[in-house]
């Protein structure tokens, strides 16, 4: 192991390390703590500049419920869910199919297609913006949850395919080979043999795509306009305009917006990290 395990170090160094851990974590998360503290303060504290001190009163409930009562945050939240979940489902399904084909079959276009998916995944959003917006406007998908889902699903398909293809490729090919020799049909191999094996990859992708799409702001700004389809990130910007200088409310809204990915991360930590490292650890 590197660095040398602290257990082998002299006792005082071990102690210092263990003391240092919570202190460094505190400093690292200071911005979050500060915003959390702000989100439970009263408006009076904000106006009188009580930023570090003990809150003069705890207004957690009032502030958090205030966010929902005084703005459309509830609707934005629902929209986010309606955008995120179908996107996850669609992009992963498509990627399972495509990843399977790219990993298992050998055909002339396999490599170029694979690279196409990878390359597309890295392009700056701005090069897609005008045409995608135009396409959405012309097809009536502008300002609809469906429009956002379709775009996100398509875009995330690139990353998911890359991931799935690598994952399936690392599976023992003999399994598929022997199934073929037994005369099992191709789609049955995919459905009954491969799909169960890639479940860890699906889990990893689900958390990742959920987080990416939930946190998206750019496309939400480009493809939506009003309450009906705006997700919470874009909504948060609107709230920031509406609650100017009401930092206790803005903070509460920000924390609310950040919650779902955070919960998702803590519930499925292992998968999440496996996903981020592109399956380097084999899920």
């Amino acid at each position, binding site marked *: 192991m590197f660095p040398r395990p602290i257990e082998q170090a002299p006792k005082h160094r071990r102690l210092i390390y263990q003391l240092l851990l919570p202190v460094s974590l505190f400093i690292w998360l200071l911005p979050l703590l500060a915003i959390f503290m702000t989100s439970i303060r009263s408006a009076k504290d904000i106006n009188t500049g009580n930023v570090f001190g003990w809150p003069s009163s705890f207004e957690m409930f009032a502030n958090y419920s205030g966010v929902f009562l005084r703005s459309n945050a509830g609707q934005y939240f629902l929209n986010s869910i309606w955008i995120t979940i179908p996107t996850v489902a669609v992009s992963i399904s498509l990627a399972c199919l495509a990843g399977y084909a790219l990993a298992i079959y050998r055909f002339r276009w396999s490599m170029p297609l694979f690279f196409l998916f990878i390359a597309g995944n890295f392009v700056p959003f701005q090069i897609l913006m005008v045409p995608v917006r135009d396409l959405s406007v012309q097809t009536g998908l502008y300002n609809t949850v469906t429009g956002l889902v379709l775009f996100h699903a398509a875009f995330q398909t690139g990353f998911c395919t890359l991931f799935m293809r690598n994952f399936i490729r690392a599976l023992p090919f003999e399994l598929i080979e022997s199934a*073929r020799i037994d005369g099992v049909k191709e789609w049955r191999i995919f459905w009954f043999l491969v799909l169960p094996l890639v479940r860890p990859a699906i889990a990893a992708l689900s958390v990742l795509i959920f987080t990416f799409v939930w946190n998206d702001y750019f496309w939400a700004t480009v493809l939506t306009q009003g309450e009906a389809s705006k997700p919470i*990130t874009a909504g948060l910007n609107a709230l920031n305009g509406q609650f100017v200088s009401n930092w206790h409310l803005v903070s509460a809204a920000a924390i609310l917006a950040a919650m779902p990915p955070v919960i998702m991360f803590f519930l499925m930590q292992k998968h999440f990290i496996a996903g981020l*490292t592109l399956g380097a650890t084999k899920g």
Partner: protein
Amino acid sequence: MRSGHGNSLRLMPVLFIAPALLFFVVYVILPIFQSFYISFHEWDGLGEMEWVGFGHYAYLLDDDRFYTSLKNNLLWLALYMLAVPAGLFIALYLNQTVRGIRLYKSMFFFPFVISQIVVGLIFSWFYNPSFGVVGHVFEFFGASPPSILGDERYVTYGIIFAGLWPQIAYCMILYLTGLNNVAPEQIEAGRLDGAKGWRLLWHVVLPQLWPATFLAIVVTVIGALRSFDMIAIMTQGGPYGSSNVLSYYMFETALSEYGFEMGYGSAIAVVLFLIMLCFIVAFLWKMYQDEKDWR
């Protein structure tokens, strides 16, 4: 051998790939070409397009805002790279087995999970000279606080600093996983040879961490060039365009309250795309080498 037998094996891959490819082509591949096409036109998104050839590109060469954005993009690229060593540093710091270390690791990773919009909001408030933390700290020392987001000298650094926070977390997690895969025998062998500390890190550990480093560099480059959310929420490119980057400048030009120059915006997007393309090609080249080895 992964060769097919029979007709079905030739047809199957097409069926499997077609849906994903269709989606991807319609929403990602075609739009890239359309953007190139639009960039040669004058278009406000409403009327007819008007062919202007390289007119927009010629204007770009003489556009101060464009140069400011380009300069800031380079600044982002350079400073964002700090996330890689910083992430490595934290990963090494946390790569222990003391009690509760798992929780520490995930708490350190936390900032990455949060939306950049939220991070941007947090730091806008942090930097606010009248209500924010920075303001109070300066007042505590009896100094008048700087207006970090309102001063052309500091603003870009202020935003990059905020952006580094989640990015360091990302690099950290890549390195933590990488460190898990480092072969213990080699480290022990290195130690027996008398290597310690930096030398051990440099000569034995880092080479083994190369895949993690590569990935960290890739995601950091992409992150730096995609920086949009933070700028949108913290400064909108201000004051007077001094914190603009190409991604935001493009948006501002093509689709904001004050501009609907889809053609000019597309020209900016094309430049940004070409910059990114250098990195994409490099990345694909590396992938290609790896694939060849795999076969």
